[in-house]
């Protein structure tokens, strides 16, 4: 187990290293990074000072070293627009993103799991077909368009829900729906296939042979086991939601990290954009690592298999 964790940890660190290298590479290779990192309209002297600070006259590897050292220390520079350290700014927005992600996740699980089970139990039935259409639409309609339609319907025509901003529970409903539909579709599909697999297994057959009522077989034996992969995916998706919410947060002016990324682009605030990408990537790598380790802990075949 220890060996397995160390190996996975090594891979994760390598991924992080390559990620930082990728980002450094793209920022440097596409031209003079000072044009990205300096404020629009900065004076010649400012540009030269930044050049000095970044050490652009030094060899590339030395530059990368100092970039990496700063990132590891959590120093992502200062935001041009807000005039505060980028990390502080990011962390102040993170709770909002988390709130939205949790709301969207709740919605996606509440819709996805029951409909997935219904579809699997009544294969080919009305629920199965309705679920398929629901999933297909969720996977095909761009999230921001769903968001815009919701605003049009519930804010402009009906006037029931606020179209943007945050603060009250009412503000969360529409963004959570727009963000969660896609994931609800994914969770539904996985619940359905996982449930089908479990329903065909030996222990479910045994439970039926014992004469247990079908409802009990499904609820007690099949459901619990079918849920494991779905919850794993949900864990990964929660982190993913924080990082792909940029477009939904922009539509609803939700003050999370995604909106911060959008502001970073709109105000040409490059340190903010860069930090957002690095932190988002790091978050996802860490979660993947945790899931791998958790799986190996639950299922010895995985850690012994390699």
């Amino acid at each position, binding site marked *: 187990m220890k060996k397995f964790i160390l190996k996975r940890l090594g891979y994760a660190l390598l991924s992080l290293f390559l990620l930082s290298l990728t980002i450094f590479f793209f920022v440097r290779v596409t031209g003079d990074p000072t044009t990205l990192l300096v404020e629009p309209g900065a004076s010649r002297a400012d540009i030269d000072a930044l050049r000095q600070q970044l050490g652009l006259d030094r060899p590339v590897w030395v530059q990368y070293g100092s970039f990496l050292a700063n990132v590891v220390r959590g120093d992502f520079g200062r935001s041009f627009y807000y005039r505060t350290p980028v990390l502080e700014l990011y962390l102040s927005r993170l709770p909002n993103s988390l709130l939205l992600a949790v709301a969207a996740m709740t919605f996606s699980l509440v819709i996805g799991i029951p409909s997935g089970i219904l579809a699997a139990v009544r294969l080919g039935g009305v629920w199965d077909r309705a679920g398929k259409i629901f999933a297909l639409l969720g996977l095909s309609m761009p999230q921001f368009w769903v968001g815009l339609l919701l605003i049009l319907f519930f804010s402009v025509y009906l006037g029931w829900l606020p179209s943007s901003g945050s603060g009250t529970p009412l503000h969360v409903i529409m963004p959570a729906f727009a963000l969660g539909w896609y994931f609800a579709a994914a969770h539904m599909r996985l619940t359905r296939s996982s449930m*089908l697999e479990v329903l065909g297994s030996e222990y479910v057959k045994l439970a039926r042979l014992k004469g247990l009522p079908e409802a009990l077989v499904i609820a007690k034996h099949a459901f619990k086991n079918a849920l494991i992969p779905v919850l794993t995916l949900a864990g990964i998706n929660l982190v993913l939601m924080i990082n792909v919410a940029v*477009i939904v947060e922009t539509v609803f002016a939700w003050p999370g990290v995604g909106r911060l990324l959008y502001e970073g682009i709109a105000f040409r605030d490059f340190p903010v954009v860069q930090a957002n990408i690095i932190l988002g990537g790091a978050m996802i790598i860490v979660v993947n690592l945790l899931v791998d380790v958790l799986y190996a802990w639950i299922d010895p075949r995985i850690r012994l298999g390699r």
Partner: protein
Amino acid sequence: MTNGRAATLTLPWRLPRLNLRGWPLIPICILIAMALIAIFAEFLTPYNPEIGALGDRFRPPAWVAGGSDKHLLGTDHLGRDVLSRLIFGTRVSMIVGFMAVIFAGVVGTVLGILSGYLGGWVDQVIMRITDSWLALPGLTFAIFLAAIVGPSVSNIVIILALVFWTRYARVVRGEVLSLRERDYVRLAVVAGCSKWTIMRKHILPNVVNSAIVLATLQLGVVIVTEASLSFLGVGVPPPQPAWGLMLADGKKGLMAGYWWLTVFPGTCIALLVLSANLIGDWLRVKFDPQLRQL
């Protein structure tokens, strides 16, 4: 009727009959129609999509009170004809979508074959890069790259290809690992074929199917990503007519109830993506019954 059928059966030759049963005809028709619209955009549009008449701002669609036959689907905040912009937007989406998918597919397939067949350090390098790039959500990575290089259609194609090749590399490598152990590949090695020949003649034809299935499924994702980038202002630069850009413009009139600026472009995106997804799902089942989802 029966005579006719009997006659065809007794003929010594038969036309190769295309069996369309089970084909997703509606999505295919939608895709073909959109491709034709994209190709013949100039002949279909009554107005220049980039120039509007400020006197005709926010005209509703023809069938709504206040609308006129001059602008079937209404006009936007600059008085530009929505229908004309949608038609030209089809071209932008199609070009960006197909080019990006093809570029990503070629790069990813080549790297996947190299990685899977050569193994060793080549495999390690390619797969570690793939892993770390896959850690970034496609949309966020694309936004980052677009923020660096600035908006233009060709930049978007390159960015999307850079972001999405990793999926192909993963899938293709997995296939190559099993193909490598097949008898015909081993026999080719014994027969003295070079690695290059084996990869080109014996491996590539067997992974093309998977790559095509993946490409079809990715087409939708790529088109949505392009629309998202344009919506955020780092995609196709204005005043070009792109659907994502139209939605961004439409958002300005949303609270005033100018619904046609939001509903029509989004419907176009959803139709195209839905068609691509349906065809992709069908191709996946058709090419590889083992991959069929239960």
